[in-house]
């Protein structure tokens, strides 16, 4: 076993391929092959999680996994597993598994499911690829691949509105991809291959400062699009026309996190915090993130459509990660990375619940939630846990990351961060408490006005279990944050490697 684990790069590759091959197979399945498709889906998802855990175990044993595919002309496609990559891999893979269960139930009986699940698998392939990318080129490849694989999911319904949203999505993300591309090629043209590793690629550079700043903002600008930072956040709320599992996994986790994850790589692994912490780079980015946090919250208050509100909440919450990354300092970085996981768990729960509400009672608006606490207590409990976590209340995970971000802000002398966090918490409360209030404290409308859709039993379970699992995880991640296996502890490990590098090989 150990010998098997020690062998090179097959493991990261198979992590990526496990969903890719599944996706390709699924494309060719006929629409009515439900069982086969579901088995493939779940099998791929379970396999991916298993491989991810294997990878985790191997890395914990001190093995280094690197897969290099030379592309010629000095370019390489590199997949490697460092702790940071693993965190994102396990997040994507784990949530993919849960979302797959949910999606199978959610899309029961709807058309074009083979197409849907095919692209769904490709999306996760892309996000694990992003996670495992070992150099900038590989990152760019998978980053753009993600755009392509997501578009079909956004326009899945094929309605005029969906197509319009898809167009908006493409305009933003391809624009962002263009910036990223320019920045990446420029940088690579100047300093050669940019490999992610313990030492930042630009650690010892003599490039002119203006060029460094320009490249930083090109790349960060490209990443900010997917991370939905103001003013390039516009695609995210419109993309909410996609089916709920898509909103849940992609717009809460995979796509947006790809941007946030990329920002972390950029700041820590390409520029190095010593360089990227400059006011013109990290400082400005932190400001931008702060503006986004507040602006997203304000917009969320204005939306009464549940999914849109959640979308703007994502806009706001995502920038916590960007903020923590940009602030520099170990505590802020820990907060950012912990939030990467925590926000994923909480937001996916919220979207799961929103999807279930829409599917069962055709509820799309906050005002329609009346009495739902009594009718769907479990769903609403999960929703409540996640929403409270979003506000940043203990013991849900969101509190932990917010706590570290605040301490990180103080640690780096950016006391204004406290004001941003407090303001955002209050605004979060302002848009998350009303739905909770309506659901738990108001009477439901008469039965006649609210028809519960009759769904097959397994569909009900399929829609119910995933949010319960993710909500529990969000709770546990907060409750047991001090345990060495928590997302927080893992984030601390990742940050420790960057701030207090140990000599010797292997993490």
């Amino acid at each position, binding site marked *: 076993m150990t010998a098997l684990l020690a062998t090179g790069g097959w493991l990261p590759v198979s992590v990526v391929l496990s969903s890719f091959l599944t996706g390709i197979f699924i494309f060719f399945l006929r629409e009515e092959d439900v069982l086969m498709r579901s088995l493939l889906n779940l099998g791929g998802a379970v396999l991916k999680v298993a491989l991810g855990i294997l990878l985790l175990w191997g890395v914990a044993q001190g093995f280094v996994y690197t897969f290099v595919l030379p592309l010629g002309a000095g370019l390489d496609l590199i997949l490697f597993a460092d702790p940071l990559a693993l965190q994102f891999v396990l997040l994507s893979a784990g949530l993919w598994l849960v979302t797959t269960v949910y999606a199978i139930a959610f899309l029961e009986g709807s058309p074009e499911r083979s197409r849907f699940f095919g692209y769904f698998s490709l999306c996760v392939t892309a996000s694990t690829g992003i996670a495992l990318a070992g150099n900038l080129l590989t990152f760019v490849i998978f980053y753009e691949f993600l755009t392509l694989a997501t578009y079909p999911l956004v326009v899945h319904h094929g309605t005029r509105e969906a197509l319009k949203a898809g167009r908006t999505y493409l305009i933003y993300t391809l624009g962002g991809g263009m910036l990223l591309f320019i920045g990446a090629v420029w940088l690579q043209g100047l300093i050669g291959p940019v490999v992610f590793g313990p030492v930042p690629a630009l650690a010892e550079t003599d490039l002119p400062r203006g060029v460094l700043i320009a490249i930083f903002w090109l790349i960060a600008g490209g990443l900010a699009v997917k991370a939905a930072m103001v003013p390039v956040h*516009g695609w995210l709320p419109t993309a909410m026309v996609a089916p709920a599992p898509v909103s849940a996994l992609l717009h809460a986790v995979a796509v947006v996190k790809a941007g946030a994850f990329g920002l972390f790589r950029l700041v820590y692994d390409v520029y190095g915090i010593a360089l990227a912490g400059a006011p013109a780079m990290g400082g400005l980015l932190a400001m931008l993130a702060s503006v986004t946090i507040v*602006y997203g919250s*304000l*917009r969320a*208050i*204005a*939306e009464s459509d549940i999914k849109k509100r959640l979308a703007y909440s994502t806009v706001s919450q995502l920038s916590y990660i960007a903020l923590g990354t940009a602030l520099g300092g170990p505590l802020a970085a820990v907060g950012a990375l912990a939030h990467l996981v925590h926000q994923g768990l909480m937001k996916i729960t919220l979207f799961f619940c929103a999807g279930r509400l829409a599917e069962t009672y055709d509820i799309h608006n906050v005002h329609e939630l009346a009495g739902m606490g009594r009718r769907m207590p479990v769903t609403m409990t999960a929703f409540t846990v996640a929403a*409270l976590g979003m506000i940043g*209340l*203990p*013991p849900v995970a969101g*509190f*932990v990351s917010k*706590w570290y971000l*605040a*301490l990180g802000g*103080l*640690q780096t002398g950016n*006391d204004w961060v*406290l*004001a941003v*966090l*407090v*303001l955002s*918490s*209050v605004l979060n*409360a*302002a848009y998350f*408490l009303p739905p909770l209030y309506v659901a*738990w*404290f108001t009477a439901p409308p008469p039965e006649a006005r609210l028809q519960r859709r009759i769904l097959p039993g397994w569909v009900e379970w399929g829609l119910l279990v995933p949010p319960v699992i993710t909500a529990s995880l969000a709770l546990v991640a*907060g*409750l*047991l*944050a*001090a*345990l060495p296996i928590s997302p927080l502890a893992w984030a601390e490990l990742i940050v420790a490697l960057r701030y207090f590098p140990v000599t010797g090989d292997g993490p």
Partner: protein
Amino acid sequence: MSEAVLMLVPTAPLLAALAARLVPRHGALAATVAAVPSVALALFPPDRALDLPWLLLGVELGIDALRRPLLLLAGCLWLLAAVYARAYHRADPRSRPLFVFFSLTMSGNLGLVVAFDAVTFYLSFVLMNLSAYGLIRHAGNAEARRAAKVYIVLVIAGEGLILPALWLGASAADSLALADVRAAVAAHPLQSWIVGLLFFGFGIKAGALPLHIWLPLAHPVAPTPASAVLSGMMIKAGLLAWLVFLPLAEASLPGWGLAWVIFGLAAAYYGALMGVLQDRPKTVLAYSSISQMGLMTVAVGLALAAAPGPAHGAEAAKAAMMAAVVYAVHHGFAKGALFLGTGLTDHTSGRGRLVVVALLALPALALAGLPPTTGLAAKAVLKDATAVAMPAWQNWLDPLLALAAVGTTLLLARFLVVVAGPAANSAPGPAGFGLWGPWLATLAAAAGAAWLPFVIPAGPAAEAFTAGSLADAAWPVAVGAGVALMVWRFFLARPRARPIVVPAGDILVLLEPVGRCLEKMGRDTVRRLGTMDGRWAWLGHVLLVYVRFAEGRLCRLERRLASWPILVAGFGMLLLLVGVIAYNGR
């Protein structure tokens, strides 16, 4: 391993909440059982703190001299309130959510008492605050909704103030232990900010003056057992928070101490004044709580200001802190008894009601400080604390405190009058042992608990009974009673006399329009923000028109390129171009 039982203090009520959700019939029973560990631990405290480094960011629970009396108070009150609630809510169709919220609130309330670290304290505080929303909102009528709304807005505002203070403290301390945080605050460059944030943030819970507005609204609408714990123990959470977060006994802050004292005295007088002008018993009691909390605020102020000096400062501050705690215990039990009794008046009539009112006079007098009640002892302790902590203030503070006692007497006289008056609502049913039993137990506890050696040290307890202090304590009561009698006799007893009544929440009436206006403005702003994306649509249109125009040109040009003369001309031009360039370049 006895300290492991500490874990049960917050978790037993959580399990009770779960039980109340699953087995609604036994919600009250579960809540009762859940309070038992706290009472037991208060009586037989473990000698070590419980360290749970794996939980949250590292949890530490424990009981010290400061917390033990409060834990006793909290445990007893919650226990008795739960027993009381069992009978009180027997016929309530919405008892299931009530007991869920009841138990959750209990968990938070008890948890924060035993919390030794900042995160656990904050977690419990939040849990208590949010769950109490369900208690206040329970009746579901317009009044309850209004009270709950005011409450939750203030709670959220409070969180916003507390969090940065915690962050600043924890960041400076590099530790979450409350002791470290306190030490860090004592030496923090932003100390004024932190102390200010703490004052207002926790002041909301403690009913400090301009932030008290939710209390008179919330207490009357909450179910009686909930009001009892709300007033008896939950508002003490704010006090405890001050005691554990402020750098008491670590640094001397006379300025802030004075502010605390002034705010406290103001609350004491203002609460009495506004309370007298109320006409509902529970509202009067709420104002009484505000007034009494004012006195405890004074004690905190004394601790904060305690003159520095080798060894002396710390001791002085500790004395003042203990004074606040003793007062809290005394007030908690008395107020609990008052609330529960008030609830009982709704369920009794005739003779039974008379008995209730008569018995209610006992805790009322205790609050006023009449000998030989716990009130006397509490006031004596407070006075001693003044002498030890800030001798310089003694000559003006003592008379002012005595004057406050006059106000308290007046207020409680008003309460007795109001509660003896016609019942507000028709009695839902006769009160059985289910209500009487816990109430009488509360009365007994109010009379006895404060005398426990770990609450009031033997010294002050004995001292309270010296002749001088007896007289000191008695005259304000007498004066108050006299004034009350006079007012009643010469003013209110006349036919067609109408007492002046101030609406509950006093300045809230003024604030509410402002709040509504702000809310509307906020909504409008946010809505405008929502339509802002549309503002850019014209740009898109202009672009579109331009693109169409350009497309027209494009089509024409491409068609022209396709004609033969132009093609051949292009061929020739290109030949020329390449030729010339190559000729120059060779």
